[in-house]
């Protein structure tokens, strides 16, 4: 049931955000997804954080719908399967989504094509987001596994 995916997406994003923030507080990473997303829209730091959180939750719901579509196709769901999707999601996010795609579309992040400065640059994340701290891949994977498990669990409960 689609409501299960949406509620799971909301709860999963909440947990994912909290886990990443906790990792940041414990000095494991400098990853700040709302800041990265928000600064794609505005240079104002305060507005960037607010917009970033809204975008982050929006993407959280979209990805939950994506998970839901796959659950429908394979006619299976559950928190373990969701956790596996979360693992794949984290590897995709670290290796392609944030590392390659985000710098291309982000107006304030450098890529290999960026020429001498016309705009301030955000530090690029690097492969598996390692530029933001060596524990960042671990924190990201754990947070996404939790997200996937919650989405899978809610979808399973709603069926």
């Amino acid at each position, binding site marked *: 049931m689609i409501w299960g995916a949406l509620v799971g997406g909301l709860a999963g994003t909440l947990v994912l955000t909290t886990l990443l923030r906790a990792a940041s507080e414990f000095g494991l990473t*400098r990853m700040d997804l709302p800041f990265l997303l928000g600064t794609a829209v505005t*240079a104002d730091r305060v507005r960037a954080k607010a917009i970033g959180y809204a975008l982050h939750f929006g993407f959280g719901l979209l990805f939950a719908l994506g998970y839901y579509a796959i659950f429908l196709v394979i006619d299976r769901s559950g928190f373990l399967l969701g956790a596996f999707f979360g693992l794949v999601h984290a590897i995709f996010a670290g290796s392609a989504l944030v590392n390659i795609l985000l710098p291309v579309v982000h107006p*304030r992040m450098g890529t290999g094509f960026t020429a001498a*400065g016309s*705009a*301030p*640059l955000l530090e690029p994340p690097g492969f598996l987001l390692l530029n933001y*701290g060596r524990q960042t891949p671990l924190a990201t994977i754990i947070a996404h596994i939790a997200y996937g498990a919650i989405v899978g669990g809610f979808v399973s409960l709603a069926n």
Partner: protein
Amino acid sequence: MSGRPARFNGYAPIRDYAAIGDGRTVALIARDGSIDWLCLPDLDSPSVLGALIDAERGGRFVLEPEVPYEASRRYLPETNVLETTFATSTGHVRVTDAMTLPAGELSPYRELVRRVEGVTGTVPLRWRLDPHFGYSGGKTRIEQRAGIPVAVSGRDALALCSWEAGEPEYGKQTITSRFSVGEGGSSLFVLTAAHQEPLVLPTRTDAEARLRSTAGAWREWAAAREYGGPWQEAVIRSALALKLLVFAPSGAIAAAATTSLPEQIGGERNWDYRFSWPRDAAFTLQALLALGCAPEARAFFSWILHASQLTHPRLQVLYRLDGRAEADERSLPFAGYRGSLPVRVGNGAADQTQLDVYGEVLEAASHFASSTGGLDRDHGRRLAELADFVCESWEQPDAGIWETRSEPAHFIQSKMMCVVALGRACELAERGLLPVKNSQRWRRERERVREFVETRGYSERTRSYVRSVDEEEVDASLLLAVLAGYDDPRAPRLLATVDAVRRELARGPLIHRFLGDDGLPGEDGAFLACSFWLVEAYARQGRLDEAAALMDELVPLANDVGLFAEEIDPATGEFLGNFPQGLSHLGLINAAVSIEEAGT
């Protein structure tokens, strides 16, 4: 040229430092262009550049000519932007240092800009960035991002963007290079810091624009200050120094920008002053309101009442800049400024009982209410509860204003401030700003404390109020009885006490706090705030000639850029203690304003 300014085993004299800041943290720059102190991201965070208290392991950002030079400095007029000119045999070069205020495009979390301009000839320079995160306890990795040197440690990262400043060379823990600047040429360094977020790597254009707008913002702020007396330059510089110590996110005011600069070289009176003391409330409110800084005054007063909520009605001696009450003291494995150990972070005085604080806070409330026209009901209720607490506590011994680590005693200045606390509470209640139900009790207890002070706190032999009961020593804190309005400033006993302080504690224009034991070995220097308190006491007693003469002697004792530390060694003129010291600058402002007011 005589060569670089003197250092003792790698340590610059405290007098040689100038401060720059952005309302969140402060950097100290020595005359030789080395940034020896920078805590990130905030003033009370661990140091990243800490050579100030460990020349070997602390970390610094060196930028100086490679050839012998003479250095001269100034702040750009009415700003906290520092300009150092190096004169060498091959030419002159000017370095402008500032921590920028956010403006324009996406600003870094923290940004320190160093602009180098060739004035005449050609000058070869060298630089070295040697960051050590977490008081040198954090593991620091040096990496590169798109050719830019980056130092990373856990939640924190630092990037050094540079233009026309040589190709960076990477060591295990350092980044170095050398370059030359010719007449009309310029180079730029931008030290950008991130905390729990990706670094922002600015463009040269944006950083230079922020440097200009930062100078403009400081000038605009300074121009709005209201003082037109004879010590205008010193008063405005003090206001700007004080503004550096205002922690903008909360409104708290740090006592100083550093920890563990010693009160005696090689001694153990080394304290962490990167906290806010409610005791300074009255001095601060008085100074801020006199200079037309109403927003800062309002923010600080609100911060005190906010920070003290968790300990209410007990006022803790000090609070963290973010308002938290924990201040656990520990020692760092640092070498200490010129071997002065221990190097402390945190402050154990937080747990002491100091009864005078209540008088200062209620005096501040009185200033605040007079200038803003009132107090809100909740603040009034809480202030009344402070007065109740004073009624219950004044008979206890305390640690006193100087935070002695010896046994608690009945310090007379503490009792006098209890009289002030209860007096202000009564006045505020009469004005309808505090609940009146306990005002009879406040009045009754005030008279009991006053009787205690007058019968046990005055020595006919020394003709002075005394430091504590059962001893006859004079204490400079007794000057605060005049400043806070314990009695008529011209009351015979107060007139005699002011004379006794000058007679017993003065070394030239400088005043020691007291001469007795404070529970620690060694001696400290003369406490600058006390010297300014004496000026203010003279002014309030109508002794304007004495006040102005002493002020004229004190103001030139500032360093070359107008800043004061906590103390001065009367024998050598050397600065001692933490730097720059808010209480010294508050004392200067209030002394100058008092003379002005008394003369009109």
